[in-house]
């Protein structure tokens, strides 16, 4: 077990390093001088040179990468070009909000997906199965930014039950655990939950239907076990796969929330990315992408490590 975890950790290191390279290089794809975002077009030559060395842009690219990585490891992602504030603190505040949104969306999606999937798998071919299948197709086909808009129209304009924008009253971005703040979370979280719901319904339905056809289930039934007891065995056998799919989905949600965050003006990483892109704020762009991807890498690692812990068959292999 320990050797397995160590192997996984070692395998994650080159991936994490390559992610830093890609996050850094991405920005060099951009046409134009990054300084054009801060320096006025008619700035004198000396000012441009001074700015260039202040941001380290006069160094060769590999050296810039090395310096950037050294500082990033210590938690320093530089200063935002547009606002002059520390990128690390900006990103961390936004990541908290995005995690909150993605976490709730995943919770709703996983619970609903397991429920629909199990029902559909148990009643294979019935009307429940058909509804669950239809829901899962809709879940993976719907443009979630449009769903967000429709939900806003329905539950914020037509029936003003939930606020349409922001993460708290008065446009504050500080999250508090009370009912007033929670109301702001409902629409974006439900919107975002549709994607994992569709995929998990599909996975669970296929797994349960497959499991029920297997000999060990017939054997359990033949021994006279009740429906609930049989279900426990089926659930235990589907859990590892569902965990793997759900874990990856949370990761996708962290990246995928950018569109939903834009619709609901949710102050998370999507909002930050948007700002960074349109203001050509390179340190902020690099920092946000890097932090999001690191979360994704760590999440993948956690799934890989947790899976054999709950599935003894994999531990032995």
């Amino acid at each position: 077990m320990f050797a397995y975890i160590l192997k996984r950790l070692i395998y994650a290191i080159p991936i994490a390093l390559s992610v830093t390279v890609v996050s850094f290089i991405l920005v060099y794809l951009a046409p134009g001088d990054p300084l054009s975002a801060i320096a006025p077009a008619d700035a004198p030559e000396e000012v441009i040179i001074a700015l260039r060395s202040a941001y380290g842009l006069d160094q060769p690219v590999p050296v810039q990468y090395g310096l950037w990585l050294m500082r990033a490891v210590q938690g320093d992602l530089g200063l935002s070009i547009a606002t002059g504030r520390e990128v690390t603190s900006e990103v961390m505040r936004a990541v908290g909000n995005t995690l909150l949104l993605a976490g709730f969306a995943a919770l709703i999606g996983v619970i609903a997906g397991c429920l629909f999937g199990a029902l559909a798998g148990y009643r294979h071919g019935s009307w429940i199965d058909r509804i669950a299948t239809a829901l899962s197709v809709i879940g993976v086909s719907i443009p979630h930014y449009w769903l967000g808009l429709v939900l806003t129209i329905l539950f914020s304009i037509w029936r003003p039950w939930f606020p349409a924008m922001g993460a708290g009253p008065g446009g504050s971005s500080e999250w508090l655990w009370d009912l007033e703040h929670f109301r702001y979370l409902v629409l974006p979280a439900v919107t975002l939950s549709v994607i994992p719901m569709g995929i998990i319904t599909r996975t669970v339905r296929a797994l349960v239907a497959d499991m029920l056809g297997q000999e060990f289930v017939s054997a359990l039934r033949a021994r006279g076990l009740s429906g609930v007891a049989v279900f426990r065995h089926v659930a235990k056998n589907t859990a590892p796969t569902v965990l793997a799919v759900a874990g990856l989905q949370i990761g996708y949600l962290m990246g995928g929330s950018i569109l939903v965050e834009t619709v609901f003006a949710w102050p998370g990483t999507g909002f930050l990315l948007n700002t960074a892109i349109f203001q050509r704020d390179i340190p902020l762009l690099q920092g946000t992408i890097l932090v999001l991807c690191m979360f994704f890498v760590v999440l993948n690692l956690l799934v890989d490590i947790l899976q054999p812990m709950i599935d003894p068959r994999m531990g032995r292999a």
Partner: protein
Amino acid sequence: MSATLPLPSPVAVSAAQPSRSYWAVVWRQLRRDPMALAAGGVLLLIIAAAVFAPWLAPADPYKASMIKRLLPIGSSGFLLGTDELGRDLLTRLMYGGRLSLLMGVVPVLAAFGIGTAIGLFAGYVGGKVNMVIMRVLDVFYAFPSVLLAVAISGALGPGLSNSLIALTLVFVPQVVRVAESVTIQVRQLDYIEAARMSGASAFSIIRVHVLGNVLGPVFVYATGLLSVSMILASGLSFLGLGVKPPEPEWGLMLNTLRSAIYSNPWVAALPGLLIFVTSIAFNLLADSVRSAMDIRR
């Protein structure tokens, strides 16, 4: 996206008939599938409306009118109302299909071509070359696909061609994985060994014996990507990273009409409805193609 790889069935591999008959069977199967017919019909309708928009559309997609802004659905002369600049919405939705479909389909086609080529090469050559290619592609898997698309097109700058490049780059690694894994399975089969013994060159083995078996699973995978691609492409435009105004495109229209959701909500929701319908039709068609191509299993 969990990639469940459709394996080439052993029967399909050993039956050395010309591949045409296989595709004929698939085609017959599809024509009997009501879901495939319905989805295909809807798609044909949307494609036809987009292609023939200059002849079918009732108005000029760029002609704005300050006094006719945001008319509701069913106004006289404007069947689906008007947008925030007073342009006929039905016309713009029809024209919008051109760019939206283009942006959804082209990246998948490009990734299908590029990904199959890289996957065949990596899988057939094997060894260290294969390992290097696949490890490099693993890096792209460390990025959630929406984030990767947004990051690349954000870095390249807004615009149609840049978002096409970004989406293609998102899909290529996925297609390569499918093509590579099938190629590796096919390569180990006896008849490939036989072809090699008989002196066939690597290129002609790939072309004659491997490609036919790899194309099927990759094709099924690529059809599944169409719906994702439609949503992502319009999503990029929605963020302002794709097509620029005043071009009609569903995602962009959804973005510019967003300010109208308080005054005229259902007009504002229409472009998104079309993205949804197109994407669900692609998804259902992909499901039908998948089951039609599994017939030999």
